[in-house]
């Protein structure tokens, strides 16, 4: 009884074992391939990040390293009950939402041009990336110069950088000008993966260019859009250089990063400064989470490829 039935069982066992061996080999390879990246990332950031989180529970000043005092969540209460923080938070949100939206629209347009243009493609592609290549502080400085009354070509007789909203819009302009190429490049790399045949077939079936774009291209480059949008939002929320140079936070144009800088680096208040860093981190994490939820399975690591 046993031998007869056992044989196929054994075969299944062997097949199973083989499969699980293959599975194990795949797992091992996966971990091995990721290991170097993980080791580098952790060795550089683990201590600094944990240390910053640790400091956020202390009253700590860089000048008096011996006098740290554990104060539970007091720093968080101080920051979250401060109008300075919330004003900066509002400005940062505004700049993030508006500039990322503009960047996505212009970035998509630029990507299509870079991808499709039939004359001077190399020239267009290379020059479109120049704004992204210019060192941020220099670009910001040149905008500041251009918008200063009397000495800049854009300002004429007005002084926009002395008022809140004109300043905010100039900051957004500087951000958008600089990072549209970043978006465009990522989106263009996605466009390169859209099969020509598919578009052609759709075109023959009578789909308009607009329909082809929305029905075929966009769904196919969704992962690229997610990556571009995600990383731009993370960066935009930490906007610092442009504001630092253009207004240094005057007229209530401080972003959360500017406020964190003033407390942490200028004021040397490690406790409050680290608390702000952690709060910025948490906010960004929430935004990223929402993005990934919104885009669903387009995030890498979900599902196993093919």
């Amino acid at each position, binding site marked *: 009884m046993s031998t007869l039935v056992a044989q196929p069982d054994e075969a299944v066992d062997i097949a199973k074992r083989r499969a699980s061996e293959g599975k194990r080999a795949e797992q091992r390879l996966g971990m091995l391939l990721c290991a170097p990246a993980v080791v580098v990332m952790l060795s550089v950031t683990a201590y600094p990040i944990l240390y910053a989180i640790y400091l956020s529970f202390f009253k700590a000043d860089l000048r008096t390293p011996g006098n740290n005092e554990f104060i539970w969540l007091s720093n968080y209460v101080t920051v979250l009950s401060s109008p300075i923080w919330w004003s900066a938070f509002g400005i940062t949100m505004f700049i993030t939402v508006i500039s990322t939206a503009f960047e996505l629209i212009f970035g998509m347009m630029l990507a299509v041009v870079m991808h499709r243009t039939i004359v001077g493609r190399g020239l267009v592609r290379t020059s479109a990336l120049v704004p992204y*290549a210019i060192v941020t502080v220099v670009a910001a400085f040149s905008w500041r110069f251009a918008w200063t009354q*009397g000495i800049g070509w854009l300002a004429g007789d007005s002084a926009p950088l002395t008022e809140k909203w004109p300043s905010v819009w100039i900051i957004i302009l500087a951000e958008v000008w600089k990072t549209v190429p970043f978006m465009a490049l990522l989106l263009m790399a996605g466009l390169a993966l859209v099969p*020509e045949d598919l578009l052609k077939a759709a075109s023959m079936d009578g789909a308009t260019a607009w329909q082809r774009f929305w029905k075929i291209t966009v769904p196919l480059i969704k992962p690229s859009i997610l990556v571009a949008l995600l990383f731009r939002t993370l960066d935009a929320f930490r906007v610092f250089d442009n504001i630092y140079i253009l207004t240094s936070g005057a007229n209530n144009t401080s972003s959360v990063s500017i406020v964190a800088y003033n407390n942490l680096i200028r004021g040397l208040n490690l406790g409050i400064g680290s608390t702000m860093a952690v709060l910025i981190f948490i906010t960004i994490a929430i935004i990223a989470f929402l993005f990934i939820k919104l885009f669903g399975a387009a995030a890498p690591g979900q599902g196993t490829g093919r």
Partner: protein
Amino acid sequence: MSAQTETTSKKVGWGLVNVLVLLYAFVPVVWIISLSLKGGDTLNDGKFLPANPTSDAYSKIFSNDDFLRALANSIGICLISTFIALVLGTMAAYAIARLDFPGKTAIVAMSLLISMFPQIALVTPLFKIETAVGLFDTWPGLILPYITFALPLGIYTLSAFFREIPWELEKAAKMDGATPYQAFRKVIAPLAMPGVFTTAILVFIACWNDFLFAISLTSTNRARTVPAAMSYFTGATTFEKPTAAIAAAAVIITIPIVIFVLFFQRRIVAGLTSGAVKG
């Protein structure tokens, strides 16, 4: 006949669009170039173009040993960082896109979290570590953080990319008698290249423009890169800004990027031309 005029008018149309792109990219850049060519007498005149251009700023920065050294540091550090980040990023991204293994989600989440933490809060502890280990003011002292902060973007871009590649083609090629190496080189590599080169450009530029780490983790021209070196430029006096010199340096250091991009952008072409995919 009519087909020809159609392509001509198409070309003209694209030409106009291209002009718009060039205007967008270059008007502010021309302003920076113009600043670099203005002398003290015309710097504040509010005109878009310099009235009597002078190359003083350029001769000044090229006779500045610290700047030249910084340029060499920048090129070296960024090339090495880009290369290593790409190798590590490609390995990890391939695994994440194609393989099933425990801890995958954790790795993806971790890399994203790392790129979310405000970097100004990391500088001081990082400085402490580097001085303790002896990495402060060395090339590796900058290369390591650059790789670290390039990896998340790299892993995300590349794995998003690798997921879209039709890997069945590899199998198909093997069935047609190709060796695994041939299948990889002839079929997979061309499809993967646009993603890899896009990432290369982004990583290189991010590294090239970094100011925070460059200024905080160096103290001499042994490892100082250009953006940091520019903050050491001085005007004639404490109260004057070296506007022309800074603008000139910005122009100069944009040239290597343009070359880098020129070199790589050719390879970001439509990977899937008709014929590569059947069905």
